[in-house]
């Protein structure tokens, strides 16, 4: 019983990744999609929050959204795993329920 959380907003624009991290339990997973993938960037004003929970929460980001935004060559947070839409489906299957942080 562990949740998959999805976050689709930029951490520079909204506080949603903080909200999600406050309520996400250790052992759950967070998948960054759409504008949420900007939170995957290493060394930004927003990345500390994620690295602090890195390990206790599994972090994923949607590869197609990373590529669309030109972030393929940028350094991403260590330990973060890229998935495609098929991997997104697998994550939804693997975890007990999905919480989309709208």
């Amino acid at each position: 019983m562990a949740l998959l959380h999805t976050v689709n907003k930029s951490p520079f624009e909204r506080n949603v990744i903080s909200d999600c991290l406050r309520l996400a339990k250790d052992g759950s997973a967070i998948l960054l999609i759409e504008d949420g993938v900007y939170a995957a960037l290493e060394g930004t004003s927003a990345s500390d929050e994620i690295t602090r929970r890195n390990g206790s929460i599994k972090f994923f980001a949607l590869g197609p959204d990373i590529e669309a935004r030109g972030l393929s060559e940028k350094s991403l947070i260590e330990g973060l795993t890229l998935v495609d839409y098929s991997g997104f489906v697998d994550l939804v299957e693997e975890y007990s329920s999905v919480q989309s942080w709208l």
Partner: protein
Amino acid sequence: MEDFEDNEFDGPIKKFMYVNRKAPYGTVYALEGLEVVLITAAFDQDVCLVFVDDGVFQIKKDQETTGINMKNFSPTYRALEGYDVEKIYVEKESLESRGFSEDDLVIPVEILSSAEISELMDAQDVIVTF
């Protein structure tokens, strides 16, 4: 045993959680989210409602919308009890960081900590956020 049989016949009972995270009026999500909750009540599922983040603003009392010419739907939350939606939780941290207390709210709720909300969230079958 009888009860169990009845439930099986009507389909499974699932744990539904509606997470209210948005302020009212600025966007329509709070209003249309409430409509989903009322419909779900008719399906005899195990429904709970959670107000976190700006969602706590939805149940602020003394809303008076004449000046913006929009419908004040906050009284509808009081009708939830009549629909047997009785598990209504508010996160303490969300209330306090907004300078709110239980006295500010239009309905009686159960105040839970972030950790308690997390536990509850983890145990759900279906979570829908508005």
